[in-house]
């Protein structure tokens, strides 16, 4: 049962991820990305990490993608306002993407493919366990990341503030 | 104006001049002041607003469920016109056109015709209105036609003009305006008649005298 669920989710993930790249309309790209996030959240649920799945949905699908959508909506998406791309940039991007593809293939070949094992049912993904882990074993990284967020917040406040003349 | 007022104040040094200026005692002096801490919360204002609206939940509604219920109307209400007949069922109107002349909205149009032999039971006098039309969309229900009529022929009744879908349907011809011959078709206008008969006005039909 879980194997079939996993396979369905995996195929959906790959299809939606490809659709993000191949959609001509940026609006559809954003929406496919949201679908992709949902399928990834499904993977988390399969791994019994409910907290991570839900937070993933709230933060990525619920907040960040809304902002993405916000920006895309306000763009003028008419085809005639699209800037013309020169051949040089096309060639450069083709080379860059090709190189990246080669690196990707090489890294996949280098890794040994193990067998897929469904993890045993644990409570590690539940809220209590995640909280305990965060505030005991991973306290330092947790606090440092919160300082990072604080500095980001201060930065945004500074940007939003009116300049004094 | 202002000078006059201040002069008034000098003459009568009591405070009454202020109150005589007002038509009612409901007016309030509005003073705009900075909100204090409690008012800035807006919560007291919100709750008092909620209290006001909930009070209205228990008040009697002002709606009249027309047509099941009908609102009381004044006894001299000016509604849809009626062209009267006399006691023998003959039309009073002689198509003199005074009503059309009197009408400030120019809503009435009349075509006169001569009474033929054998029509004596239909029309009271030798001349009658072959066509009598009132455009109900133009009519302002002032009742001047009624005042102008020397023959006791047109009255405004207490009936309300019904709605229609086209403008043409608002032009009422004789088929709608003339009252029926039998008792059930008659329209009672005694309430409006009384007004005039109190002081022996020229409204009395001459022919009956």
């Amino acid at each position, binding site marked *: *049962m879980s194997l079939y669920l996993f396979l369905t989710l995996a195929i959906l993930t790959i299809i939606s991820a490809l659709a993000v790249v191949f959609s001509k309309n940026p*609006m559809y790209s954003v*929406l496919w990305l*949201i679908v992709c996030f949902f399928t990834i959240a499904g993977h988390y649920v399969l791994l019994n990490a*409910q*907290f991570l799945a*839900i*937070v993933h*949905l*709230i933060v990525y*699908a*619920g*907040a960040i993608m*809304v*902002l993405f*959508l*916000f920006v895309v*909506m*306000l763009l003028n998406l008419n085809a005639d306002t699209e800037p013309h791309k020169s051949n040089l940039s096309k060639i450069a991007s083709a080379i860059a993407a090709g190189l990246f593809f080669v690196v990707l293939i090489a890294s996949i070949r280098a890794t040994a493919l193990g067998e897929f094992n469904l993890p045993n049912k644990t409570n590690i993904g*539940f*809220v209590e366990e995640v909280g305990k882990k965060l505030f005991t074993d991973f306290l330092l990284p947790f606090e440092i990341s919160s300082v990072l967020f604080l500095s980001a917040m201060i930065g945004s406040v500074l940007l939003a503030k009116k300049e004094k003349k | 104006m202002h000078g006059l007022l201040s002069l008034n104040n000098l003459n009568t040094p009591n405070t009454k001049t202020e109150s005589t200026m007002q038509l009612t005692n409901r007016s309030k002096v509005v003073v705009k002041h900075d909100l204090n801490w409690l008012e800035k919360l807006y919560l007291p204002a*919100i709750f008092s*607003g*909620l209290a*006001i*609206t*909930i009070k*209205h*939940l228990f*008040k*009697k*509604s*002002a*709606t009249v*469920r027309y047509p099941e219920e009908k609102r009381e109307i004044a006894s001299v209400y000016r509604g849809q016109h009626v062209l009267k007949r006399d006691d023998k069922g003959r039309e009073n109107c002689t198509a003199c056109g005074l009503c059309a002349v009197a009408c400030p909205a120019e809503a009435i149009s009349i075509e006169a015709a001569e009474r033929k032999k054998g029509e004596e039971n239909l029309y009271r006098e030798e001349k009658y209105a072959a066509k009598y039309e009132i455009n109900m969309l133009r009519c302002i229900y002032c009742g001047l036609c009624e005042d102008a009529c020397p023959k006791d022929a047109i009255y405004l009744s207490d009936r309300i003009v019904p709605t229609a879908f086209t403008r043409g349907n608002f032009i009422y011809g004789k088929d709608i305006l003339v009252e029926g011959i039998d008792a059930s078709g008659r329209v009672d206008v005694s309430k409006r008649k009384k007004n005039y008969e109190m002081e022996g006005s020229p409204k009395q039909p001459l022919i009956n005298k």
Partner: protein
Amino acid sequence: MDWALLLDKTILIVIIFAVSLGIAAYSTYGERKIAAFLQDRLGPDRAGPFGLLQPIADGVKMFTKEEIIPNASDKFLFIVGPCIFMMTALMTSAIIPWGKSFNFGGHEFGLQVADLNVGLLYLFAVVSIGGYGIMIGGWASNNKFALLGALRAASQMISYELAMGMSIVALLLINNSLSLREIVDGQAGDGNVWNVVRQPIGFLIFLICAFAECNRAPFDLPESESELIGGYHTEFSSMKLGLFLFAEYINMFISSAIIASLYFGGYHFPGIDSLDLPQNIAAIVSIAVLFAKILFFIFFFMWVRWTLPRFRYDQLMNLGWKILIPLSIVNVLVTGAWITFFK
């Protein structure tokens, strides 16, 4: 997979679905009636006795009206928008405990579709996705008013979700659980009081945010008819408009249920245990109690709508970011301090 469980849940989902739609339909009737009564009018009274068939007449009207899809719109997303909005509105009801469980001859029939241990977070996830329906619908209409409404909806939802989340954090500190059933049960029994007593400020913040999340007056800026001629659903007609309007009422119903569960003891009332009722009767009583609370809050939603005028957009943002969020953070701090030092 346990087939009996699956059957139970399917039956429950169908019932909840039907009840949600029924309540939403009659909320439209209730809204018009209450608006009328608050304004000394009578409201709809032509269709059936007291106008009780009005929602059915409205439904028939919605279904039979002409379906218009604007030529310049994105047709696929134009249809998807209202569907997502409706779907997310219905999804939230999965975690609400509707009452105590029934017992049919030894077979326990629980009245909660899913008792997730991340229940409240699930609620936030679904609510945050609900904004997509409005955004997609508004953008796909290819109409500037609809787009403005969609943008307003999105920014309003994001802004008020933060304060809502913080007010819930304070609640969690007290209840020590994210599961709605545990929160509800934690408000009953000896020595326990309703959360509204323990968290008055949190309740107020949650209530205001619930109004904003439901796009209800005084926060109905996304669809303000006076400025945006209907906002995000300007271009929608027929049943697609119906879905938008309907989903709003379902949202209201579900938010009322959540407010009742989180802060007003859910399906409990003081002294319910001392009555010592048989289990099935107790279950029915508990459902009735919850629905009484829900109906009160639906009434409250309408009462407020017909009392307060709409906020201006900058006032909305000021209230959300400068008042509610700091207040909710202070609320969390005070609650934390109280738990640390006095418990």
